[in-house]
């Protein structure tokens, strides 16, 4: 992860973006190739490893665990909902700069952004972490209107008591630019890979319930609402133009970064500016539009890839062949 760049390099990259030839020959809206594999970590409910050709390497794992529901003490909101908890960690092995506390700010920035986009309740990112606002009973009725897509009600086992908690953990193993997009691609792939065991709830009367987790590995549920999960596109403004999938050197030249989260129907699920520059309002609107179309294309292609892999695995399993994952013994 370079941290220094010379003025001449900066000027060369800036002018290159202007005339639509980037340092590695790509044009402004070109992505590098993405290498994706799901189901790479056996201990998880679902996992995916995403690599972008230049080096970015992200491992996303989803772990489904059972825990108590989190109820807002004032309004009773959240009693019938499961939870999603996101965390991002940059491994020190990925870059010297992530060593010690070096990655804390970056981890926090991405974690907060992920929570805001994926954890469903609209105000939840602010209520769940710090309770600056208190939810109201009406929020409970706005079930699937949150940006994250995942249906939290389906993750509830016994209302008011037990629910599934999905821990989405992203581990950055190598850095080659464009972390955010890679993390969201990985998250989508990992959620698609996730299988949640079925549960059986018994009513003991008196408002007492008991449940049993069925241990049949074949008969499991996918995460409901996963198709509506958003993906994000990071647009880097360099000069008067914007590029996608920036390389580390291009990120150093970036004046302003806009992260656009969008779902498959083209709704915007989050928007955040980063870095220390400004954007003219007209360009901002143009970038939002661009991010929206780009995101929809990305989702379509990503879903095709995920489905193809899932189908191939299923076919193998039906033929009775073992499903081998390449995992880390691959390039």
């Amino acid at each position, binding site marked *: 992860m370079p941290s*220094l760049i*010379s*003025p001449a390099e900066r000027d*060369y990259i800036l002018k290159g973006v202007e005339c639509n030839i980037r340092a590695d020959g*790509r044009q402004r809206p*070109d*992505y590098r190739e993405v290498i994706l594999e799901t189901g790479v970590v056996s201990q998880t409910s679902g996992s995916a*490893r995403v690599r972008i050709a230049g080096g970015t390497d992200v491992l996303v794992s989803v772990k489904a665990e059972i825990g108590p529901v989190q109820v807002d003490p004032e309004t009773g909101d959240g009693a019938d909902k499961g939870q999603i908890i996101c965390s991002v960690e940059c491994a020190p092995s990925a870059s010297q700069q992530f060593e010690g506390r070096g990655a804390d700010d970056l981890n926090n920035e991405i974690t907060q952004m992920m929570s805001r986009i994926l954890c469903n309740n609209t105000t939840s990112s602010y209520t769940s972490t710090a309770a600056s606002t208190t939810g109201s009973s009406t929020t409970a009725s706005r079930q699937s209107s949150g940006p994250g897509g995942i249906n939290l009600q389906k993750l509830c086992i016994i209302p008011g008591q037990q629910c599934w908690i999905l821990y989405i953990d992203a581990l950055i193993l190598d850095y080659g630019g464009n972390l955010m997009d890679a993390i969201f691609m990985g998250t989508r792939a990992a959620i698609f890979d996730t299988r949640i065991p079925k549960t059986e709830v018994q009513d003991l009367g008196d408002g007492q319930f008991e449940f049993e987790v069925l241990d049949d590995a074949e008969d499991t549920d996918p995460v409901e609402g996963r198709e509506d999960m958003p993906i994000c596109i990071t647009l880097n403004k360099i000069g008067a133009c914007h590029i996608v999938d920036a390389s580390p050197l291009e990120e150093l030249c970036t004046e302003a970064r806009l992260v656009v989260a969008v779902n498959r129907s083209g709704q915007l699920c989050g928007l955040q500016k980063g870095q220390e520059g400004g954007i003219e309002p007209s360009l901002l609107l143009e970038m939002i539009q661009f991010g929206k179309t780009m995101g929809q294309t990305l989702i379509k*292609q990503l879903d095709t890839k995920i489905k193809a892999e899932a189908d191939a695995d299923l076919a193998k399993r039906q033929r009775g062949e073992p499903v081998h994952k*390449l995992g880390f013994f691959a390039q």
Partner: protein
Amino acid sequence: MSEIAFYSPVPRSSNSKAKSKGNHSNDNDMDLDEMISSVAKNSSTSATLHVVTPGEVITTDSAYMRGHGTYVENEKVLSSVAGVVDRVNKLISVRPLHTRYNGEIGDVVVGRITEVAQKRWKVDLNSRSDAILMLSSVNLPGGVQRRKQESDELQMRNFFMEGDLVVAEVQSFFTDGAYSIHTRSLKYGKLRNGSFLEVAPALVQRCKSHFHSLACGVDLILGLNGYIWVSAHVPQNLDEIDTEQVYSNKNKEDITVQDREAIARVANCIRALAAEFIFINDTIISFAYEASLQHKLKDMTKKEIMHQIATEAVDAVENMKG
């Protein structure tokens, strides 16, 4: 709208890649026996290349002298690094494959200024310690040879700033092993008009010249430390260099779209060769460039095409040799 390509990973070693084309079901994990046999096969087929790992006995003949990367125990010469055995007469040394840059005096290197200190700059050379560029080892502006003054000391940042890229020559070593480098020649100095890339230092071989002008109108500096500078061609006439311009940060105005495309293409060719761990020199880069012309520039980031270009370039070099 551009397409985004998604791929599945492929197995890492090249011989299992060849197999995977035929039968995809059970080739993914090589078992240990297979691995050992394939290693043995490799070493037997390429008898000229002797690859060793740390602790491996290179020879039991006590007549040999130990060089870099080896040690002696019980009158046997053992390797202390993973790499290739070099034998010069009675001297045995092991050259590690993946290592940081180990320099020698006279090497042409490309470095990045990391710090401006008292009368000196610290320069990142991809070696184990930052190299030192003394203020007295650079050409001062306004006349090639003049004494340094106090005013020069105060405006060192006007010459080289943190982040600047320089091409220089290794001048000497300090007692702690740090390099002292100099730019006291007009071919050395600040780098402009191009882009920077990094390969493994072992891939750049010592040649007669490390400054090349390729036929496609691209200048190339192959730093022995694995840092490479690809830039637009600037006609060099050493007699008419404007000494005031040596430290300028401005790129030249007339870098055309064709220039940029050629630079990107050359840079991608080098990346393709480095990805396959092939020695990099101007000949093979020229061949790779020719091989790349049949592909669109933006496709050159794709792994498959990179592999194709590298293979074609290697074939072309072998054809030329015989």
